[in-house]
């Protein structure tokens, strides 16, 4: 499909076009940047909600319940479910749709499974771009569901406007989970399977940990990326800006507590909008995005459109024999490129 035709179909919110545009973006197929540029002016309608947590926390079931509820409130919803690619075979088994069966046939719902494909650092960017396509495709809410293990998944969760961290009483030692660093990404905390033993204790543990963070620990947290960090739960001076992450209890299997979760997400949204933080976060993200694209394209250009790689190959005998260091070769190549030579 030609990008122009696809853009027209995307604007018309045709499901097959949305699906194919996502594939183009995911695979970096020619034309994907045109598509992303074309939809850029329309972006920002969709609220992006990240749902993350350890395996077995019931994220998909909770997502299904949330989708049901959002649909009942008249909103269209897209879900991006991210699961790991096997590092050995490059294949992946993506099974999250099973849990979302009740909404699978709803024309106001779009579900897409994504494999991490082991792309180093690229996953978060790709996920953001996929969410852009869904935003451009006219969905009111985009839910990004990932397993909260490992840095790249956490980065994915961070692409959302509102990130929900889901924990369960039996998901190992609650405190351990809390210590592992994923607390910082939660705008909302959910203790799922709250009818099981240990739920109240877990809730208390989270609240205590959050209290400590809000009190003193958080003041010493370094900001994330550069001076105008995107993760401004604290303002630049380190003081909280008035959002206290709530700790909610749900039983996803019965739907208990899901309406409260949706309301809390709305409150967080109002908070972000009201304080101007949403605009700030989004601006920061666009700044990061532009940098990432420059990096990606630079890398692409250097290795595929200049002779940089060939130049290294030519000097390898010298490098291997110790006559010249990798650093000297790199400096030479960079200097040449700066001079405008494509070597």
């Amino acid at each position: 499909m030609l990008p122009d035709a696809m853009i027209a179909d995307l604007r018309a919110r045709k499901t097959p076009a949305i699906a194919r545009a996502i594939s183009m973006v995911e695979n970096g197929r020619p034309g994907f940047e045109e598509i992303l540029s074309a939809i850029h002016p329309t972006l920002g309608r969709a609220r992006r909600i990240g749902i993350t947590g350890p395996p077995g926390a019931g994220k998909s079931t909770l997502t299904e319940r949330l989708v049901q509820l959002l649909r009942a409130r008249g909103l269209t919803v897209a879900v991006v479910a991210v699961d790991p690619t096997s590092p050995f075979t490059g294949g992946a088994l993506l099974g999250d749709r099973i849990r979302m069966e009740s909404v699978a046939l709803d024309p106001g719902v779009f579900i897409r499974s994504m494999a991490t494909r082991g792309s180093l650092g690229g996953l978060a960017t790709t996920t953001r771009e996929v969410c852009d396509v869904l935003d451009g495709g006219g969905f009111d809410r985009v839910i990004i569901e990932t397993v909260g293990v490992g840095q790249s998944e956490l980065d994915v969760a961070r692409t959302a406007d509102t990130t929900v961290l889901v924990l369960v009483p039996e998901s190992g030692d609650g405190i351990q989970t809390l210590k592992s660093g994923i607390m910082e990404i939660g705008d909302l905390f959910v203790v799922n399977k709250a009818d099981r033993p240990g739920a109240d204790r877990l809730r208390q543990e989270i609240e205590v940990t959050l209290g400590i963070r809000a009190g003193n620990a958080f003041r010493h947290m370094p900001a994330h990326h550069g001076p105008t960090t995107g993760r401004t739960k604290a303002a630049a001076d380190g003081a909280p800006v008035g959002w206290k992450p709530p700790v909610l209890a749900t039983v996803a299997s019965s739907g208990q507590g899901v309406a409260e979760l949706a309301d809390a997400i709305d409150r967080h949204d109002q908070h972000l909008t009201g304080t101007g933080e949403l605009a700030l976060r989004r601006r920061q993200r666009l700044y990061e995005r532009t940098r990432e694209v420059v990096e990606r394209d630079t890398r692409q250009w250097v290795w595929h459109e200049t002779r940089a790689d060939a130049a290294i190959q030519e000097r390898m005998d010298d490098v291997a024999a110790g006559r010249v260091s990798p650093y000297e070769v790199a400096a030479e190549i960079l200097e040449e490129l700066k001079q405008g030579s494509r070597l």
Partner: protein
Amino acid sequence: MTIAKPDPAGQELRRRLADQERALAALQDEVRAWRAAAAGLPVRADVSFAGVSGREVEPAYTPFDLSDGSQAAAGLPGAYPYLRGIHPTMYRGRLWTMRQFAGFGTARDTNERYKFLLARGQTGLSVAFDFPTLMGYDSDHPRSEGEVGKCGVAISSLADMQELFDGIPLDQVSTSMTINGPAAMLFCFYVAAAERQGVDIAKLQGTIQNDMLKEYMAQHAWIFPVEPALKVIVDLFEWASAHTPKWNTISISGYHIREAGATAAQELAFTLANGFCYVEHGVARGLDVDSFAPRLSFFWDVHNDFFEEIAKMRAARRIWARTMRDKYGAKNPRSWQMRFHCQTAGVSLTAQQPHNNIVRVAYQALAAVLGGTQSLHTNALDETLALPTEESVRIALRTQQILAYETGVPNVADPLGGSYYVESLTEGLEREAAGLFAEIEAQGGVVAAIETGWFQRQIADSASRFQREVEQHRQVIVGLNEFIEDDEPPVEILKVGENAEREQRASMAALRSARDGVAVDAALERLRAAAAEGRNVVPPMLEATRAMATLYEIRHVLETVYGTYREPVFF
């Protein structure tokens, strides 16, 4: 030193014991020598000596492979712990029930097949339902399209059940119904059909499978989430113990777990763990264990590894007896006795050279009888291709009759008792089961391990291992990966047309217009209320059945209270 009086008997005994000890010591030396010699002998390198379950076996077994005291612990047939069978004389008193699973098309079609089988000497009926019925959908539900009457008989209401047993007095047959998710509904249909025949329901004999735990693990005909499903099962235990005391309220099934790929040890342990889980739920309801445990029955798969299968059934009996007596405090010996049905392994049949399946089934049937089964279904040769034809069903039944009347096998109880190999396998399987019970416990018990997909993963791993071995020809399957015929003549298969669906749609429409809709709605509302209030749902379900509420109407009303099960994601 005291001078003992001469004690000829004692001296004789001591002399014999000493002789035995010397003989054993000599044997031990011989075994050592044999082992050393055997280790150096060439063996066929192209095949595995592990059976279908992947268990490596020794080239031969000796008394040293048995644990101390194992011979005394084995006991006798008909005596605790029933290792050697639940009746003192086993098949001399009564042969096993030859029970061929059958059903296809409409109730009328299947009714004819039942009469055909009863006329040829079958001794019990076994109903195979179609997939819509197994899932609780009426024949005219949109999800039933294309599947009505295809793999079993379509039963959507009491009217269908009446037709299924038309001319078959329900106080004179024993009927097994393979039904789980909607087991309570179909049981109510059966009870109401008996009432309409004028039969005293206390005389009803038979079994409903009603084993939801293995559905979540392996067979996957589920409706409700685990806990409400268990609640309805216990409702049936409670109701049946008072009203239909000769009816087996559950058939705790290893069959489907095994067919899904489990090893023999997994089948044994997972099934028994499920059994104990049901017992615990019954006891938690406040039922006396001896009020319902005698009506719990089991169902095993009989696979190709001949001796392992026999050992599995023997081990199962001993574990059940010991646990029921010692852990759950059952006092009635009938609560200790594991009674079971067997079916030959459908998964072992091949679509290639299907006549070979007759031979497979015969060996498996022999294993079931040597294992002491109470009833048996022998698969028909064409079952991997389609529903069996009358011809293939007849051969399958005759296979059992030849075994029962020509081979002499049923004349002696537990004829393999005392075999070093079989006893050692039996003990080995018991040890493996104990290990698996501990693992299940570590997972938080049966229900937790289902919800996390632990069982399902264990089974899938075993299935993959076996598949790999077959693909690598480490496991030879005749006609499939070795001894292949290039030009196979096709066998004749039974084709079930679409007419069953058409007929069912028409009869459902007639039923819906003929019945009293107000009475149906009122009965369904009483059922919903009972479910919502946590009362026993069997009485209002039976009421709704009598009012001609359909299967799906009953399912649906319970679903509004209980919710729907969703499978965990795992591979």
